[in-house]
């Protein structure tokens, strides 16, 4: 079946613009995670959902970052008034229910955001 997909794959934004990044998880996966990967670094956790509930948003770097998953499937990460330090690859991952495969996170290809 299809894996996790993300769109757009590349996004260039002028500083101050708002952007929206989309994640389509694997069908049936209840958990969805967003990570930020700066150049030369490992992914860092931003937020995660179980179905439509946002269970943890402690990794969001500022109130300019907002994520939603209204129907428990597709998720959108929105960044308002983008700054240069927001330039990174944003990775989405999804997981099946824990009873099936604990901690099996399947990653999408990421969206590379460049803020100029």
């Amino acid at each position, binding site marked *: 079946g299809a894996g996790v997909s993300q769109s757009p794959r590349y996004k260039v934004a002028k500083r101050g613009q708002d952007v929206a990044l989309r994640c389509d998880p694997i069908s049936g996966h209840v958990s969805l995670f967003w*990570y930020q990967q700066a150049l030369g670094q*490992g992914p860092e956790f931003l937020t995660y959902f*179980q179905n439509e509930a946002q269970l943890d948003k402690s990794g969001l770097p500022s109130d300019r970052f907002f994520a939603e998953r209204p129907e428990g499937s597709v998720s959108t990460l929105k960044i308002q008034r983008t700054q240069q330090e927001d330039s990174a690859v944003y990775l989405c991952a999804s997981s099946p229910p824990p009873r099936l495969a604990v901690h099996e996170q399947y990653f999408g290809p990421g969206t590379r955001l460049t803020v100029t």
Partner: protein
Amino acid sequence: AQSVTQPDIHITVSEGASLELRCNYSYGATPYLFWYVQSPGQGLQLLLKYFSGDTLVQGIKGFEAEFKRSQSSFNLRKPSVHWSDAAEYFCAVAPGSGNTPLVFGKGTRLSVIA
């Protein structure tokens, strides 16, 4: 808080040579441990994972890793490297059970020379 250290930023090996990538973690209990590989422009692919039981785990693409509690380590090994193994490798830890966020190391970039 959990943390993961990958001491080597960049490693270069010859094709056919053996490989060991180091990973140390900090966590109070036995964590869930993972190795992921990331090729340029690609997402992360799970190579292997350790939850419990046998401390030597086998993964895909001929990789294996050994969990050593006394050293808080989970090193990745491969007996014979192929040019296609050139990529970035990330060690990660997850606390407890259930689906919780992963904590990643900064990664080790592997270059393979002929």
